[in-house]
């Protein structure tokens, strides 16, 4: 084989290798899971959870948001201690919804925390009277 032919063969091998690399890259990048929609679903789920929890009617004239605000202000509500009422209701709700403390976190200002989220997480938050409520998902 002449020198020119050998060089053309080498060039062809390199082109083929690059082509294979390109095809593999395209194949895997097209197969990658579209995360945007999934993230929006999780964010929506967190926002819905936050709305449902704060709107829940605890007694005749108070919802859970009122109970949280009363706990922050050290006031009694529904003829009960607001903080223990809030904690009992929250724990019962999370238990029924199957939310576990290692994959889910709820923070109410700096006076109440449920669960612990570490690593990558999606957070939804909402300002209440005098403090922020935030819910994180790290499942």
């Amino acid at each position: 084989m002449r020198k020119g032919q050998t060089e053309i063969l080498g060039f062809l091998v390199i082109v083929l290798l690059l082509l294979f690399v390109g095809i593999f890259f395209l194949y895997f990048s097209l197969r990658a899971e579209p995360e945007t929609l999934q993230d929006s679903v999780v964010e929506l789920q967190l926002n819905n959870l936050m709305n449902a929890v704060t709107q829940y009617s605890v007694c005749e004239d108070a919802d859970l948001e009122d109970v949280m605000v009363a706990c922050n202000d050290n006031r009694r509500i529904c003829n009960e201690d607001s903080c223990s009422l809030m904690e009992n209701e929250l724990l019962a709700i999370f238990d029924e919804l199957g939310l576990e403390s290692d994959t889910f976190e709820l923070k109410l200002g700096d006076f109440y925390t449920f669960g612990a989220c570490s690593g990558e997480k999606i957070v939804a938050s909402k300002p209440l009277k005098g403090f922020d409520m935030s819910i994180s998902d790290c499942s």
Partner: protein
Amino acid sequence: MRRAQVDMLETIMVLVVVVIILILGIFFYFTFFAQSVQESGADACFQSTDVLLLSVMNMPEIQCSENTRERPCVDTSKLLVFEADRKYGGMFESNCPQRIYFEQVYPVSNNITCTKNTYPDCSVWYMFEPLEDPEGIARLSTTVSLYFPLEDKYKIGKLIVEAYQ
């Protein structure tokens, strides 16, 4: 055997081998192609389930409203209008059959299906169920605030969308 015959036999053998390889190639190609079409179908179904979950909550037909102001909750009395086995045109159309229902989660309640006769002493509202003999492939849910106008109370529930094949 003459040389021409040997050459011909050789050509035929090569042709047979090439045809076998071709048939195997076509068989494997179509097997994987069919598999990838099925996967794409399932993916499209999952995505449409996500989209349905995102959109059902914002339907004015079921959302709470007061003096035309919408609130982020579901009015349970409005859910009674839906008949699970009825077709609602393009309202719940998607890539695969899906069942949509609401369930009261807290306070824990009975498991009675809500109709005009059982409401409000019930806890499950079937909104859409276009199925005959389905095989479930995905279940997606989100927490919702359920409003009971007769008691003027908010309870906690779940909107569940189940996709079928």
